[in-house]
């Protein structure tokens, strides 16, 4: 029952806030939303204990029967029921824990906004949708949550809808993720068509049974599974901002910073990872797709790392970093390192939320200044935020001891010998780690070292709740790696063990641990300018490089222009050519036909009595003629 109630605290809060929003004072609205979040945290904590106490580590609750789907193989019940196992437990603890802290932060951060209640309502709605997504026991309900988070993302990116850029970003995010969602929906239909089930557990059982049976899977089923996996991957790619649907995430930073932290770093963007992890039984049966996932993740993490190197906006750096880190998760999933991927998901949620919130605090302190080249020397001016940011960056770089170290190393360690990954991807991961440390250092140097390149006085938010939220996140980031994550009941034993002939060289781990330090060392000298910038005359001697390559990287490696060229321009051209809409014209034939009659009848209804009489006479004549014939 507690499980069933999990999303409803938020739902209630959402309804209250959206209904009475304008009339509630800041305090009341904040109390409602944050306390509902606190209740969620409490409930999920209890649930975690219940889960560990249960015998097969699974909790199940059925709320009500939703509808039936008919299939040749039999009727499939679609229920509104929740399913809690190790994987979803990780997710709900991340969602509720990080979500609670971000809510707390947001309640103070957004205090002065006139639409505060609406903002909190959207945040609550997002949590509802995310919990439904995570807890869903069937794919239809999951899809409901999936679309729900998409909607909330749209609403929150466009929260300040008076500014055109925000609205455009919201639209972009919505449309791009919709492409992935469509693919996913098709995947779900195909899945149902092939197996006659959409219940996750049932699908899993079915797939496992048929693959372990003597006859194995039929050719058609194997083929279907390949396509299902590919289509589901499409959905995951869209939601998790992976190549080729990654372009929305940097723009999504237009939303309020807590939104970036909650949705576009910690929770929603990892939904794709969760989906693949949840459906791993399907993916295991299709090694090619696993391979694609791995490559996709690797390429994304490298490209995002390169793009992050050229950004001037602090939040965009973090956005690209997020993409890159999710790339790691994808790489892990593709390599079959399921629990390592999920583990990284969790730690990433902690430290990326910390980074975003701290960045938000910094931006707030600098009067909404987001440009890195207008910062500098903040470590002295904002020591609290600065030190927390350092903590976040340490985790991001995966320096030994931090949570990021444990998760990332776990991923990298399993790449070499995975039969769906391999040494090449291992090198990619190492290169990615190197890039990570370099852009992290660049970011740190630009923002927190050197001289202050701004004139305004900083004003740091001293609210105790806000600070405690940040501190808790920092602690989680530092020590989150020590949380014992046992997902052996959820995931199959690691695939790596089954291929012993690929030998792992002994220097692998050493290199992996050393990589960030190499990066730091490199940056220390390469970005000397940034950390030692001085004022020359009235001009600052530091500005963003405007070389073509840098601008290209800054603009996300030209994906936007590529898509514009490939899709938007041709579409606009088509739309231009098809201004009168050929299909519409065909449909308008009906209207034209009706209006033809309309015109004819209008001519008859001319108000002239003599005309009516003549028509009358003509009708009589025709009637008589008919009766005569």
């Amino acid at each position, binding site marked *: 029952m507690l499980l069933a109630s999990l999303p409803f605290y938020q739902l209630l809060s959402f309804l209250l806030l959206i209904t009475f929003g304008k009339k509630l004072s800041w305090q009341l609205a904040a109390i409602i939303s944050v306390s509902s979040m606190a209740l969620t945290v409490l409930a999920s904590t209890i649930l975690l204990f219940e889960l560990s106490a249960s015998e097969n580590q699974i909790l199940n609750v059925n709320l009500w029967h939703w509808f039936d789907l008919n299939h040749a193989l039999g009727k499939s019940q679609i229920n509104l029921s929740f399913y809690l196992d190790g994987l979803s437990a990780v997710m709900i603890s991340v969602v509720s824990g990080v979500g609670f802290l971000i809510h707390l932060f947001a309640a103070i951060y957004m205090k002065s906004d006139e639409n505060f209640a609406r903002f909190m309502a959207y945040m609550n709605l997002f949590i509802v949708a995310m919990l439904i997504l995570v807890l869903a026991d069937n794919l239809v309900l999951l899809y409901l949550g999936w679309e729900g988070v998409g909607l909330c993302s749209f609403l929150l990116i466009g929260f300040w809808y008076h500014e055109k850029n925000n609205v455009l970003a919201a639209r972009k995010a919505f449309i791009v993720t919709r492409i992935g969602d469509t693919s996913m929906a098709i995947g779900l239909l195909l899945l149902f068509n092939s197996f006659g089930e959409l219940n996750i557990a049932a699908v899993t059982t079915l797939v496992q049974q048929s693959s372990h049976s003597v006859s194995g899977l039929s050719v058609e089923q194997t083929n279907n599974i390949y396509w299902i996996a590919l289509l589901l991957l499409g959905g995951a790619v869209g939601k998790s901002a992976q190549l080729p649907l990654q372009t929305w995430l940097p723009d999504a930073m237009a939303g309020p910073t807590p939104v970036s932290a909650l949705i576009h770093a910690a929770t929603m963007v990892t939904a794709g990872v969760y989906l693949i992890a949840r459906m791993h039984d399907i993916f295991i049966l299709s090694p090619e797709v696993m391979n694609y996932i791995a490559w996709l993740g690797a390429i994304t993490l490298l490209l995002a790392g390169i793009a992050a190197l050229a950004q001037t906006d602090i939040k965009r750096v973090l956005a690209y970093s997020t993409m890159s880190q999710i790339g790691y998760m994808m790489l892990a999933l593709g390599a079959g390192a399921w629990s390592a991927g999920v583990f990284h998901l969790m730690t990433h949620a902690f430290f990326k939320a910390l980074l975003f919130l701290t960045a938000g605090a910094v931006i707030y302190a600098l009067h909404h200044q987001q440009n890195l080249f207008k910062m500098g020397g903040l470590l002295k001016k904002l020591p609290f935020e600065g030190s927390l940011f350092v903590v976040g960056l340490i985790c991001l770089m995966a320096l030994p001891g931090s949570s990021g170290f444990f998760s990332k190393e776990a991923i990298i360690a399993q790449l070499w010998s995975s039969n769906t990954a391999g040494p090449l991807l291992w090198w990619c991961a190492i290169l990615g780690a190197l890039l990570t440390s370099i852009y992290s250092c660049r970011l740190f140097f630009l923002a927190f070292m050197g001289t202050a390149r701004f004139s305004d006085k900083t004003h740091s938010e001293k609210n105790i709740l806000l600070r405690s939220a940040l501190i808790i996140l920092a602690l989680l980031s530092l020590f989150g790696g020590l949380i014992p994550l046992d997902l052996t009941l959820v995931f199959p034993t690691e695939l790596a063990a089954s291929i012993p002939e690929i030998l792992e060289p002994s220097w692998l781990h050493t290199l992996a641990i050393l990589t960030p330090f190499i990066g730091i060392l490199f940056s220390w000298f390469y970005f000397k300018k940034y950390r030692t910038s001085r004022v020359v005359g009235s001009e600052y001697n530091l500005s963003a490089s405007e070389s073509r390559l840098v601008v290209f990287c800054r603009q996300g490696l030209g994906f936007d222009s590529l898509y514009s060229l490939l899709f938007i321009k041709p579409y606009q051209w088509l739309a231009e050519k098809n201004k009168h809409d050929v299909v519409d014209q065909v449909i308008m034939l009906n209207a034209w036909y009706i209006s033809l009659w309309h015109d004819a009848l*209008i001519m008859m209804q*001319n*108000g002239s*009595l*003599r005309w009516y*009489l*003549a028509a009358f006479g003509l009708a009589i004549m025709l009637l008589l003629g008919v009766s005569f014939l």
Partner: protein
Amino acid sequence: MTTIPLFHVLILSSLLFLIGFVGVVARKNTLFMLMSLEVMLNAVGVAFIGAGSVWQQADGQVMFVLILTLAAAEVAVGLALLIRMQNKYRSLDIDLLNQMKG
């Protein structure tokens, strides 16, 4: 003792009716339209009386009496409207009344 064929009576009736019809349709003067209407009603009366006399039933004349009352009522209302129209438009042109333009 008359042996006027019903056929001829009906021919007379339809002739009168159609003359009236032509008048109603072709004339623009409302007064003439009303008169033509009387011709038409009259023609119907001829048909009724003729049929009644052929079948030796009084019903034909009964119907004629009813037509007569109808004509009286119609003329009362029609002439009143005509007078209204004359007062308002200073003309009896029926085409002036087509203010409902489709």
